[in-house]
C-alpha cells in the first residue's frame, strides 16, 4: 500500500506539479514516458513519488515518445490505469500511436503541455500540438491554470475509464504559462481524490486469462468503416453527458464548477472573444475593464475541445453581434481552427454574428492585455457596422508590417 501525503488546503504549485500529484493520487499503475520540455516535471514527479513509495505503480522510461505511447497502449490493453505526459515534437512523434489508442478504445490520460512545433525549434507555449491531435479520436480538455490542470486530470480519468466511453483523454495546459507558473491550488486529500475517480475497472483486458482477447486487429474495407463509426458514435453521444455528470459530481465534492463551454459575462454580451488556455483568464480580466468603459464584452473559453461542443457554442453565442476567434497556432494555409469550427457551429442557426480570426502568441509570444483591448475595440466596431471592419484573419503581437488575410 502506497504512503499518503498530507497536503495543505492550498499548495502553491505550478501546473506540472499539480498534474503529477493528480497522477499520484489516482494511483496510476503505469506511466511510460520519454520526458520533453515543458512536460518533463510531470513524469519526473510521478517517478519520484514511485521511488519514494507514494504510489504503487511502474515507471517505464522508453526510447522515444512513439515507444512511450506504445507502452501505454500495451499497459492499458493489459488492464491497468495508465498515463503519460508530453509536448510539441514529442507529441508529433506520438501521433501515429494516438490513433491506435483511441481506435483500440483504451482509456489513457495524456497530459499535453502545449508547446510550439518547430522549425524553428522553440520550447515555449502555443497550441500547435493540441491542434495537431484534434482528429486523433482523443477527448481533449483545456486547463487555463494550475488549479484546472489538477482538477481536469481527475475528470479525465473518470470519463475516459467509464465503460460507456473507453476513449483516451488529453488534458491540455499551456507550456510555461501554466506548467511553470506557480499559483495557489486547492487540493483534494489523497483519499477524496482517489475515491472520486474510483478503483480501475478493467474491460476486455489481456490479463483476464479466462477470456483471452486479441487487441490491435487488422480490418480492411469490410470492417474498418464500422469500427470508426462506432468510435465516432461514442465520442459524439456518450462523452459529453459523462463529462457533465463528472463536472456535477466534482462540484459537489469541491465547489469548483466546470462547464463544457465556459462563458464569462456572456448574458448580455455584444462582443466576445473565444480562446483557450491561459488567454481565457487574461481575456476575462480585460472584458471586465472593457465593461467599465461601456463595451458589453464577454469571453468564451473552450473547456472541451474534442468532442467539439457544437450545440453549446451555438447556444452561448446566440445573441452576440461580433466574435473574435483567437487561435494560438499557425493555421498554415487556412483560417484558424477556432474560426472554422465556430463558423461551422453557427452557420445553420439564426445567429449572424460577425466573425473575425486573430492569430496570436506563437512560440510563447506574450498576449498582453493591451492586445486584448485592441481586439475588443475592433469587435465593437464590427458589431456597430454589422460587418467586418477589419481583414478576416489578422496577426497580433507580430513585428514588422501588419499581416492579415482575406
Amino acid at each position, binding site marked *: 500500500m502506497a504512503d499518503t501525503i498530507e497536503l495543505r488546503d492550498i499548495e502553491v504549485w505550478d501546473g506540472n506539479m499539480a498534474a503529477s500529484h493528480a497522477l499520484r493520487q489516482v494511483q496510476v499503475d503505469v506511466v511510460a514516458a520519454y520526458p520533453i520540455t515543458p512536460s518533463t516535471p510531470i513524469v519526473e514527479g510521478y517517478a519520484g513519488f514511485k521511488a519514494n513509495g507514494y504510489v504503487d505503480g511502474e515507471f517505464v522510461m522508453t526510447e522515444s515518445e512513439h515507444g512511450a505511447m506504445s507502452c501505454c497502449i500495451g499497459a492499458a490493453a493489459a488492464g491497468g490505469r495508465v498515463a503519460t505526459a508530453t509536448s510539441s515534437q514529442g507529441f508529433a512523434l506520438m501521433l501515429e500511436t494516438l490513433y491506435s489508442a483511441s481506435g483500440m478504445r483504451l482509456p489513457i490520460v495524456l497530459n499535453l503541455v502545449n508547446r510550439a512545433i518547430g522549425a524553428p525549434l522553440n520550447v515555449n507555449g502555443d497550441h500547435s500540438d493540441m491542434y495537431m491531435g484534434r482528429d486523433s479520436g482523443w477527448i481533449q480538455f483545456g486547463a487555463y491554470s494550475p488549479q484546472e490542470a489538477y482538477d481536469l486530470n481527475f475528470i479525465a480519468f473518470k470519463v475516459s475509464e467509464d465503460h460507456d466511453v*473507453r476513449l483516451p483523454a488529453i488534458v491540455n495546459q499551456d507550456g510555461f504559462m501554466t506548467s511553470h507558473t506557480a499559483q495557489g491550488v486547492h487540493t483534494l486529500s489523497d483519499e477524496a481524490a482517489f475515491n472520486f475517480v474510483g478503483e480501475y475497472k478493467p474491460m476486455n483486458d489481456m490479463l483476464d486469462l479466462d*477470456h483471452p482477447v486479441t487487441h490491435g486487429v487488422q480490418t480492411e474495407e469490410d470492417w474498418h468503416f464500422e469500427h470508426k463509426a*462506432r468510435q465516432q458514435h461514442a465520442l459524439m453521444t456518450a462523452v459529453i453527458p459523462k463529462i457533465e455528470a463528472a463536472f456535477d459530481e466534482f462540484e459537489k465534492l469541491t465547489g469548483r464548477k466546470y462547464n463544457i463551454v465556459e462563458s464569462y459575462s456572456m448574458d448580455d454580451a455584444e462582443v466576445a472573444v473565444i480562446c483557450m488556455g491561459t488567454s481565457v483568464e487574461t481575456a476575462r480580466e480585460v472584458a471586465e475593464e472593457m465593461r467599465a468603459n461601456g463595451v458589453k464584452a464577454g469571453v468564451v473559453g473552450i473547456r472541451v475541445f474534442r468532442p467539439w461542443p457544437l450545440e453549446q457554442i451555438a447556444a452561448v453565442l446566440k445573441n452576440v453581434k461580433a466574435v473574435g476567434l483567437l487561435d494560438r497556432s499557425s493555421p498554415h494555409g487556412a483560417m484558424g481552427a477556432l474560426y472554422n469550427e465556430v463558423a461551422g457551429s453557427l452557420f445553420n442557426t439564426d445567429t449572424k454574428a460577425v466573425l473575425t480570426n486573430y492569430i496570436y502568441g506563437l512560440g510563447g509570444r506574450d498576449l498582453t492585455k493591451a492586445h486584448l483591448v485592441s481586439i475588443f475595440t475592433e469587435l465593437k466596431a464590427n458589431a456597430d457596422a454589422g460587418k467586418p471592419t477589419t481583414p478576416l484573419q489578422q496577426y497580433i503581437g507580430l513585428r514588422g508590417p501588419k499581416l492579415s488575410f482575406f
Partner: protein
Amino acid sequence: MEKKGWDGFEIGAMLRTFDGAVQDIATTLPENRPYSQSSSFTASVADWRIEKPLFNKDYCIDCQFCWIYCPDMSIISRDKKMVGIDFDHCKGCGICVQVCPTNPKSLLMFPEQKDEEAALAEWPKKEKKDQSEEPKED
C-alpha cells in the same frame, strides 16, 4: 462470418478467441475448445489447396518436425504421435513434406483430388543414397 453493423460488435479493435470463459485451455484439445466465430479455427481454408499432403504412418518416426514447422498448426499430433492432417486449415504449402527426414518420406504432396488409398499404394520405396549426396565433413 456474418458481417454485423457498426453497433453490433464489441468496442475496440479487439477479437475474442473463445465464446464465454475458458479454464485450463492448454490441456483442452483444440476440437474441444469453444472457439468463437472470430477465431480462425472456425474458418476453413481447404479450398485454397491445389496439392495436399498425405501421410503414410508406416515410415513415420514421430520426430514431430512436421508439427513444429507447419505454419497453420494443421498437423494433428496426440501424445507426441503423429495422427494426421487437419484438412480444414492445411493450405497445401508442402513445408511438412520438405522437413520430413524419413526415407522414403512419410508425407508426400499429391493433387487435391487424389484418392488416399491409391496414393498409399503407389508410395515410393526406400531410395539408395547416391555417394555424392553423403554429408561432407568440413
